[in-house]
């Protein structure tokens, strides 16, 4: 076993999470490698020091404030239960009837455009538009479920944007640090 591999496993070793095979391999490396033994001691000390640093106490009345806001949200719409399973948060954020009317007109216009466009598309290509891959749809659905953050236009990868979906699909990992 190489030292970098051994060191990467140390924190699961300390937490007793390593499967037996890996634990045995690591222990045999530790017996032969004073550098890694020293490293292990350092990891143990580091974790002990980290855990000894408390966070400040939870602000008093936090639960009450959350419950008051929750009551307001539910009071403003009658019930937490939504009659429709699609994301509906947009209409709860204070749209005026005019805005809704405008949105409806816009949507109708878009629909007409899509229908016409699709006819042209199918006529010219003699093929229907491809269904999105399942994983793609699931990711989008999952994102809507986890974070109904429809106003996230300002981040570098706005929710629902192609880069955002791409990043979720490719399981962003440590290379994306900043």
């Amino acid at each position, binding site marked *: 076993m190489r030292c970098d591999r051994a*060191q*990467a496993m140390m*924190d*699961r070793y300390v937490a007793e*999470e390593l499967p037996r095979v890996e634990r045995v391999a690591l222990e045999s490396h530790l017996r032969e490698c004073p550098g890694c033994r020293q490293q292990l001691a*350092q*990891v143990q*000390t*580091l*974790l002990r*020091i*980290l*855990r*000894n*640093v*408390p*966070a*400040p106490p*939870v*602000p008093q009345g*936090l*639960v009450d*404030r*959350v*419950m008051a*806001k*929750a*009551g307001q*949200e*539910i009071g403003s719409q009658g*019930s*937490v*239960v*939504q009659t429709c*399973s699609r*994301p509906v*948060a947009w209409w709860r954020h204070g749209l005026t009837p005019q805005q809704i009317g405008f949105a409806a007109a816009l949507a109708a216009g878009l629909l007409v455009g899509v229908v016409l466009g699709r006819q042209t598309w199918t006529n010219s290509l003699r093929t229907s538009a491809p269904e999105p891959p399942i994983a793609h749809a699931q990711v989008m659905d999952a994102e*809507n*479920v*986890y*974070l*109904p*953050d429809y106003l*996230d236009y300002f*981040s570098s990868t706005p929710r629902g944007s192609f880069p955002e979906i791409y*990043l*979720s699909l490719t*399981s*962003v*990992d*440590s*290379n*994306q*640090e*900043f």
Partner: protein
Amino acid sequence: MPSDEELMSAVAEGDLSAFEQLVRRYQRSGWNTAFRLVGDLHAAEDIVQEAFLRVLRAAPRYRPTAAFRTYFFRILTRLCRNHRRRNVASPSGDLDAWVSQGPAPEDIASSQEVHSSVNNALASLPARQREAVVLRYYEGLSYGEIGWVMGATRKGVERLLARGRAALANKLGKLLEK
């Protein structure tokens, strides 16, 4: 005692007392995590409140395919990330200051010094390393759970943690020699 997931189904049915139980269960870890990730008392409170409200809004669409705990941390971590993007200027904020506010036992000077170095070291980590370190060493999430929360592979999590530990050890060199 009902499980988190059972409480979530009750919340989806409009049961506010089930929601309150979830808030009580998670206020501490939610608060600790938000504070350690943003380092600002006011921002941390806003973020925790918002995370709980998002849980409430999403409850009708929640499916227990992931444990509630990781689901909650995912929402919370995203909110912290958005906050940091908007507030690049304050990397440590209150992280450093709050320790001096408590009552003072005799040896508190040295422990405050330790706390403040640890908090500064934590605040100096790149965002994703900081998330991985906090979720792992303070909240005790597994690599798989952290991967799900952060959208990273297990290997990615392992690398983030290894780099995070190395950076912390580097910053806290003197403390580790004791």
